[in-house]
């Protein structure tokens, strides 16, 4: 009996230790990057584990902020995230509400219509050609319009709208509210948590946008931040090459750029974690 209890105890301690190690493995790279970015560039970077900065300096950041392309990238990403998310939310709400009304004639057809693209898509090339045809190439609007509704988010919101009691909506209509007024006055205020979750889903997706931006946007001053970062990492950015500067500290500079890219996400991370977890639940639990 006694021995059995002791054995459990050891297992528990090992379990805690395991997660301690896992936690460190997850976080250390970020810590390392931040410390690296605050370090004085040196020939002997191999001597430091970067548990703390090797000779503290903000020069890497000063240098990063002197780069025009980083500024334009940052503002492009802010624009994309803010405008993109607003467009996403308006379209998703306007589509989700009718789809959540069981009595809407033709609801089955419309549901199938929005879900089918989840199963089959034209793919990269035809989508590219369509966007080119619309004259959206080389503009942030190509990203905003071509990803205006995410089917998964649409389904989450529809599911939530469905869970709002019909009696509430009927009552509003008896009081003389039209559909739009019911949506704005009754449904949306009841859905604040879901709306917050979905807007965060959309916002993170826009902030991290890289793939489509590399496909649709060619002019470097129009690049969102992730594409700028990728090019700085690859050392291809025009602004960097044409200046004719010799890089004394590319690694420290790269790390500073990474920190700048990640910082906004880190600032909202507590909210992200809370709402995203809810969102995943909403998506997975049966409605």
């Amino acid at each position: 009996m006694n021995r059995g209890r002791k054995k459990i105890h050891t297992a528990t301690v090992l379990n805690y230790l395991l997660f301690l190690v896992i936690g460190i493995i997850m976080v250390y790279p970020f810590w390392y990057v931040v410390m690296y970015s605050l370090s004085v560039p040196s020939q002997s970077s191999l001597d430091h584990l970067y548990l703390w900065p090797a000779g503290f300096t903000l020069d890497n950041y000063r240098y990063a902020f002197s780069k025009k392309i980083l500024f334009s990238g940052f503002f492009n990403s802010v624009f994309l995230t803010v405008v993109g998310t607003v467009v996403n939310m308006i379209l998703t709400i306007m589509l989700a509400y009718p789809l959540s009304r069981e009595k809407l004639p033709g609801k089955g057809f419309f549901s199938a219509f929005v879900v089918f693209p989840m199963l089959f898509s034209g793919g990269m090339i035809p989508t590219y050609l369509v966007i080119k045809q619309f004259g959206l190439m080389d503009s942030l609007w190509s990203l905003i319009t071509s990803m205006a509704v995410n089917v998964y988010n649409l389904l989450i919101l529809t599911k939530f709208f469905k869970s709002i009691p019909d009696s509430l909506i009927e009552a509003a209509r008896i009081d003389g509210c039209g559909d739009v007024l019911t949506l704005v006055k009754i449904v949306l205020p009841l859905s604040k948590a879901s709306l917050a979750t979905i807007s965060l889903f959309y916002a993170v997706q826009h902030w991290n946008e890289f793939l489509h931006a590399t496909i649709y946007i060619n002019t470097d001053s129009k690049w969102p931040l992730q594409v700028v970062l990728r090019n700085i990492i690859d050392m291809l950015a025009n602004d960097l090459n044409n200046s004719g500067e010799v890089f004394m500290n590319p690694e420290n500079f790269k790390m500073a750029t990474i920190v700048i890219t990640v910082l906004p996400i880190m600032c909202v991370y507590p909210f992200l974690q809370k709402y995203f977890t809810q969102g995943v639940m909403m998506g997975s639990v049966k409605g």
Partner: protein
Amino acid sequence: MAGAKVKALQGNRGKGGKMWKAVREHRTLYLLMVPGLLYFILFRYLPMFGLVIAFKDYNIFKGIWASDWVGLENFRELIRSRDFWNVMKNTLRISFTKILISFPIPILLAILLNEIRQVRFRKVIQTCIYLPHFLSWVVIGGIMLNLFSPVFGLAGQFFKATGMEAVNIMAKKNTIFWVVIFSDIWKEAGWSTIVFLAALTQVDLNLYEAARMDGANKLEQMIHITLPAISSIVIVMLILRIGKIMNAGFEQILVLQNPITRDTIDIFDTYVYREGLGRGSYSFAATVDMFKSVIALILVGSANKISKWFGEEGIV
């Protein structure tokens, strides 16, 4: 009043006139849907029609409709292409390895994390392991390039300290595959525990109490209570994952591959990207993509069916 009217109409939906009346009654709702549906038509359905270029020799000056038909020529070229088979092999190899190794890890982590009763510690750990999910592959790739560099990264220090021969595992053909697998685990394993953790919190704690009374030890409790409790969600997640086999991780591979390692980890999406958008062989690239999409459709469709057999809601 309006509600009653709708109810009255429900019964006679089949009759034309009344149906029309019901539609008119909901006209505001239809109007609300217009912008969203327009998006779907323009950006989701229109490209599907654009897939006709797989049967044409797309000419940038003639446009999609005026380009010449070539029948199945592109598909013949595809089957003859060595690249295509290489890409197919890589996609399946990466996907299957990810399922084999990356899929069970979150389940194991969730079970172990569920055993941790100290709430604060558990919260901190969850915060740490969810973090990488929110960062882009560009950021993570950038960090990895530094960490694994023998010249200025942590890997360099390791080689220096151990006296081993310095190699860059991100620039070697035989190591890049595992870099892809393990970086994927590092980024997503923590986040993937959420679904399983949710299932675990549903388990009735009295069951464990009863099992303890019957003399079951921790391991036995795990096998007889914990595993059955999450087995259905595990099966569903697995089926859904298998449905996505044709996607081996576009953004990840695009960020991690370089000219030296390209052949070993080139997948459908990166190949289509390079062939189509890089070299301008639109028709051939669209053909490759179409082949991939059709297989994916079959897989997702079957996965959905199977998941419904298991009494779970599919993705659709």
